[in-house]
């Protein structure tokens, strides 16, 4: 019987089976940020276990609130800094080098096909875009990961989403994933890995694949996974050119992780994206999705472009195409948070930052900030935000605030008109 990507990765990493359905697997990387790690660090210290399983496999960043906004966040950052120093963690990213974890770590080449990765962050599923098994966990699992380099998971089942057709103008990876979540529902993929396949995936860049996999968790999925291919190899080449004699060699090695033809999936759904138009969410759940046009009488107070979902350079490019020569509506506050310093640099070089600023956007440093209602654009009660982030939960961006999720182009178009707006007339 054939195997799925997730099954192959689990087999290659299996350490123990404490019961039939539980697999303890070896980890290739443990990612850490300053919101969920400090409590794990403090607990390890309290237990007299302030050590790490392998300092080269731990990657840490201060990204959620940076620079620190108050004494409490300063304390969280300090715990991370001290700990990284004490344990000789070289890949630690602080002020000047830090950015949103799920955008920063792939950019640094920390993710490879076949890897197993955990992080105390639900959107760790993003890294499955490289054909890795990457899962969000709580602080206790993170603590054990840091200490022993293992994590326990149920045997993964895989739900296959086969994407066919061609995206119409103005339809992006974000529209596709919101559409898929609306089909699956917020728990349609619980305890499953979501494997994205089909001709649409083959045509997507790594950045777009990350946008898709990033939101697997919004359907309850443990991880999103895309089969590794030439696009994966090309993206990783600067980091792997010492390991393989040629790109062909690398590809040959990586495709061994792809699901076998006769692999067994828990379920397969086919989605043709040809008729899809730009979409957005309504309500407080990410599976509540309508066309942007159907939501066009929704007035917005703030437009937020950034986050691990859509704060990458391609996202900024698409939004800037809409914003070029335009002005943000006087009733809207426009906020751009490039996800990483390299994204910021590239956007400066390409003149994208200037387009945003000329339109009236405020540009912040790379950080999660407003995405989870922590800083840099928290909403007041009753305010509405058109946002490129991934969660529209009640209060997510500030108590009493309302969030509508959409692509960067739709967010940019909404900034211009002050209402949720289909971006197609601007591109």
């Amino acid at each position: 019987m054939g195997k799925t990507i997730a099954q192959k990765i689990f087999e290659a990493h299996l350490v123990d089976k404490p019961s039939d359905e539980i697999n303890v697997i070896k980890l290739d990387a443990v990612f850490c940020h300053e919101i969920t790690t400090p409590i794990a660090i403090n607990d390890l210290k309290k237990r007299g276990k302030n050590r790490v399983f392998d300092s080269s496999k731990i990657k840490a960043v201060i990204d959620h609130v940076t620079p620190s906004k108050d004494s409490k966040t300063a304390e969280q950052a300090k715990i991370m800094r001290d700990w990284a120093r004490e344990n000789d963690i070289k890949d630690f990213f602080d002020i000047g080098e830090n950015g949103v974890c799920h955008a920063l770590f792939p950019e640094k080449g920390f993710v490879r096909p076949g890897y197993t990765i955990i992080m105390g962050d639900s959107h760790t599923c993003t890294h499955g875009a490289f054909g890795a098994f990457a899962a969000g966990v709580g602080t206790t699992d993170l603590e054990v990961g840091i200490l022993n380099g293992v994590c326990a998971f149920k045997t993964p089942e895989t739900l296959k989403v086969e994407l066919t057709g061609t995206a119409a103008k103005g339809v992006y990876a974000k529209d596709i994933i919101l559409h898929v979540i609306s089909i699956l529902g917020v728990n349609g993929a619980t305890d499953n890995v979501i494997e994205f396949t089909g001709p649409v995936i083959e045509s997507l860049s790594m950045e777009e694949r990350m946008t898709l996999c990033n939101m697997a968790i919004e359907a309850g999925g443990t991880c999103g996974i895309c089969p590794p291919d030439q696009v994966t190899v090309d993206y990783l080449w600067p980091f792997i050119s010492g390991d393989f004699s040629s790109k062909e060699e690398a590809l040959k090695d990586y495709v061994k992780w792809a699901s076998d033809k006769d692999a067994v999936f828990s379920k397969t759904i086919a989605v043709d994206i040809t008729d899809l138009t730009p979409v957005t969410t309504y309500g407080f759940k990410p599976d509540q999705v309508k066309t942007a046009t159907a939501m066009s009488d929704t007035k917005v107070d703030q437009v937020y472009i950034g986050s691990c979902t859509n704060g990458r350079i391609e996202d900024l490019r698409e939004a800037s195409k809409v914003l070029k020569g335009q002005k943000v509506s006087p009733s809207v506050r426009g906020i751009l948070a490039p996800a990483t310093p390299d994204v910021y640099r590239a956007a400066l070089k390409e003149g994208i930052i200037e387009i945003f600023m000329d339109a009236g956007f405020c540009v912040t440093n790379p950080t999660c900030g407003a995405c989870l209602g922590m800083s840099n654009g928290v909403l007041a009660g009753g305010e509405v935000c058109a946002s490129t982030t991934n969660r529209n939960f009640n209060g997510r961006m500030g108590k009493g605030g309302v969030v509508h999720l959409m692509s960067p182009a739709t967010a940019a178009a909404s900034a211009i008109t002050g209402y949720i707006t289909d971006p197609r007339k601007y591109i």
Partner: protein
Amino acid sequence: MKDFNGKVLFLDRNDINTDEIIPARYLTEITKEALKPFLLEDLKLDGFDVEKDIDDTNVIITRENFGCGSSREHAPWALEVNNINIVIGESYARIFRQNMFNCGMMAVTLEKEIVDKLFSTFSGSATTVSTDFQNGIFSFSGGGKQLEIPFSISSYDKSLVEAGGWVDYADTHYK
């Protein structure tokens, strides 16, 4: 082992997420105890009053996909520091469920028909449950009515509850 007995709070809604259980704005706290006043602060649910309904609650009974959203273990901790060590429901988000058992707490799954029965029999009256962990039996009583409901958790989850959580278990087994 933690205490799984006491007064029941009924939350009759699917998909209660971790932002509702403990909003992100409180994630800057670095002790569990500090989360205590903020449990379920953002929960939108008819008839639920965050000011009154949490005091002296020990058990939550709810519907599908409880704990979806963020991976924050602050959600089980916020429950724990309010003396709630057990949630009973139709289903859970993976990370939340794992976090509960990793903390030596329980997220117990019952069939929808049984959860329906618990809601229809007890919701609205002061209800308590006593939990026989070894034999897997809940005894509910409230409004003059009583019900015994069997439950099961896997042997692995059971060992986590008995060990008091995953850290000690793992550091003994996988050094």
